[in-house]
């Protein structure tokens, strides 16, 4: 398996990594919500949020360069929107000019993606799922997600093997030929996957699977963590109040 780079830094050992996933999910949601509800022209508030995120990144010990690289994901969408705003400016809300609105949107989505990256690179996916389950997300759905996550790596490896084989068989073939030979590989991958799924299910049944997965409860909410979470939320609220009063 070659795909452990997915959440490469999620198993570091900082205080943020060790915190209860439920807490991290809730704080992240609150943070993103308050970023979203910021007035597009309020640069001070954006800057302060940026400072909070930066200090969280430092505390988490995840390399900033890694986060920076991942955050470039939003660029295509930003370009798309800016194109729309370039060609047509009618129908926009009257309170802001198009430029301020655009700048606000870009900053908001950038800050939000930083929060999301921080969440996922400080929380291994299985414990994120555990957190979601404890937050009362449907058990069946959590089960589905955990199955899926487990098999992504196996199937990605298989997909890479199939692609490598195809490449070495038809080095330098034309485009249509390549399309025509790649698509069937997906069909083959589907059939293999289906059969894998059936095998996995019967193996689970023969070991007594009855539809529920029992896991150790490894997450425990500690008082100190709750306090830190509350402190963070309070800081975010204070930033909002402070910068709003400053703007007026």
């Amino acid at each position: 398996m070659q795909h452990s780079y997915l959440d490469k830094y999620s198993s570091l050992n900082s205080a943020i990594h060790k915190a209860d996933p439920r807490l991290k999910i809730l704080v992240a949601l609150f943070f993103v919500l308050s970023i979203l509800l910021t007035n597009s022209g309020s640069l001070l508030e954006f800057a302060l949020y940026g400072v909070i995120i930066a200090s969280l990144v430092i505390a988490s010990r995840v390399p900033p360069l890694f986060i920076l690289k991942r955050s470039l994901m939003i660029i295509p969408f930003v370009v798309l929107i800016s194109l729309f705003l370039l060609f047509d400016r009618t129908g926009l809300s009257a309170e802001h000019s198009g430029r301020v609105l655009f700048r606000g949107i870009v900053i908001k989505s950038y800050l939000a993606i930083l929060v999301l990256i921080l969440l996922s690179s400080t929380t291994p996916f299985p414990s994120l799922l555990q957190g979601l389950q404890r937050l009362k997300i449907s058990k069946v759905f959590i089960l589905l997600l955990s199955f899926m996550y487990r098999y992504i790596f196996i199937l990605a490896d298989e997909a890479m093997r199939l692609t490598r084989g195809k490449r070495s068989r038809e080095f330098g073939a034309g485009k249509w030929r390549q399309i025509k030979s790649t698509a069937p590989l997906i069909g083959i991958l589907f059939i293999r996957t289906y059969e894998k799924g059936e095998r996995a299910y019967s193996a689970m049944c023969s070991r007594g699977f009855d539809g529920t997965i029992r896991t150790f409860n490894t997450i425990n909410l500690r008082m100190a963590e709750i306090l830190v979470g509350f402190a963070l939320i309070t800081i975010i609220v204070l930033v909002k109040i402070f910068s709003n009063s400053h703007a007026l």
Partner: protein
Amino acid sequence: MHIPDGFLDPKTILLCYGISVGWIAVALKRTKGKLGEKMVPLMGVMGAFIFAAQMFNFPIAGGTSGHLLGSFLAALLLGVWEGSTVMAAVVIIQCLVFQDGGLLSLGANLLNIAILGAISGLWIVKLSSLTSLSKKMFLFACGTGAWLSVVVPAAACAGELGLSGVAPWKTTLVAMTVIHALIGVVEAIITILIIVVIDKIRPDLLRISATTS
């Protein structure tokens, strides 16, 4: 196509989350009732398959390449409810692990890609299977379905952006639809080629989904 955070306003976010969560809740209930827990491992594996299928690159004009999106294929192979649930899991993992699409706009992305992507194309195939069509016509219906499963979500995405007051309605709608009409053609071709292979090797897998859902 995955909307990041910051682009949608609170009312659109709430609306989309409401529809998506409601749909998935109903879908989960139906799945559970019909096939019991057996479907869950299978659906999980199929979700991983969609991920892997998106890794295959297809050369298109110039130096660009595209890949399968898979909403229609999932719906065709598993049925509308199961297909959209699987795609929902895919979209959630794309959001939480790959940061593809935002946390608050997750509801909208679920609605577009998982739900509309699964519904929009399949009805054509359903219609065509009522009359016993030739295999060529069935494949044509599948291609049209795959095309729709790309174009309809794109139009919905434009609608959501318009509703949020972020981008002007008409321009966005036209631009998104035109771009995705082209992407949809690629999706249609790839999907047809995939179905041909599955039909050759395990035709039973195609028929099961066509009849049970």
